[in-house]
């Protein structure tokens, strides 16, 4: 099923806009939480081979923190909020006034705070999408992991695995100040969800 081979440019633009709205809302939420401006990069929407997806966060073996949500509702998918461990510590110390310990260890308290921050951001990401598309989308409870990016992200690709060796993802990077990256959102809608998203947005769907 080469559903995505013929993804027209304008469909990519629609998905980019979807990412823009979701991540824009999440950036606003983060900006309020931190009480400082948070920018975001223009979302990237790409059909990528599985191997290349982990490269977006520094390679398959790069250690990242991931807050993972399964998106439930009319357009199911997987949503990841990915941070470097340093960005995680940074976020905690400024946001939750938690005096983080040096090193890469996280206490239970820190872990729980990160999970809650992820929850707030994912909630704002998805609720804006739901408003925009009029499709119901809600996140499951957050699941956290700190591990190799490849091991974590592969989990979000399983639904795509059934139909090919590429996945389409919408990825947005948050920027604070000049270039410090605070985090990245990866939305990987299930293959079947694209038609629903397009239909909801009035984009003609045809497979020929």
């Amino acid at each position, binding site marked *: *099923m*080469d559903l995505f081979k013929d993804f027209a440019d304008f469909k990519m633009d629609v998905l980019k806009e979807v990412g823009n709205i979701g991540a824009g809302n999440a950036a606003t939420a983060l900006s309020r939480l931190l009480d400082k401006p948070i920018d975001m990069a223009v979302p990237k929407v790409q059909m990528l081979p*599985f*191997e290349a997806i*982990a490269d977006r966060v520094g*390679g*398959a*073996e790069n*250690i990242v923190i991931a807050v*993972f949500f*399964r998106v439930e509702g009319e357009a199911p998918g997987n949503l990841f909020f990915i941070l470097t461990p340093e960005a995680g510590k940074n976020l905690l110390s400024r946001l939750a006034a938690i005096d983080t310990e040096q090193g890469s260890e996280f206490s239970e308290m820190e872990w729980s705070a990160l999970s809650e921050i992820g929850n707030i951001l994912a909630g704002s990401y998805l609720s804006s999408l739901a408003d925009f598309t009029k499709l119901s989308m809600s996140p*499951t*409870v957050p*699941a*956290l*992991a*700190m*591990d*190799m*990016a*490849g*091991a*974590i992200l*592969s*989990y979000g*690709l*399983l*639904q795509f*695995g*059934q*139909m*090919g*060796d590429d996945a389409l993802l919408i990825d947005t990077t948050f920027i604070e100040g000049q270039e410090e990256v605070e985090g990245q959102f990866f939305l990987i809608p299930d293959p079947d969800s694209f038609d629903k998203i397009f239909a909801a947005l009035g984009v003609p769907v045809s497979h020929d």
Partner: protein
Amino acid sequence: MIEEQHIVKVGMAELGMVQNQGLIRTTGLGSCVGLTLHDPQLKLGGMVHVMLPSSEIAREGALNLAKYADTGVPALYEKLIQAGASAKRLVAKMAGGSQMFSFAGTGDTMRIGPRNVESCKASLEELGIPLIAEDTGGNYGRTIELDCETGILFIRSIQKGIKEL
């Protein structure tokens, strides 16, 4: 491990083979399973990085055999046999198959790691290849490397460091 050694990298849903003084590696295994077959006499080793337990659910056009446990293990076996390996000498090792995230509601997809492991074992059994070592399960990622000279499987994880099988 010596850096100048020949390293073959196996990506997700791929398989590969190397002979003599070579290493074969796959990185960032989560729920996926990295399974290796080794013929100690020929110093011939192969590895497959399987992602899903069964090809029955495949909806893709041209089936990527390496992606599924039930097709990837036989495909790797065939490749090694064609390269001259003896079916009687082949031994298997595997790692991966973890559950990266735990949720309260555990559906079938959540158990994908353990199911990959089960399916690999079933395939090995069908082919009559002994599984001589495994490091599977848990909730963490692994990078694995097979030394084809010695047949040692190196397993690296951020929680447990380096392990040899």
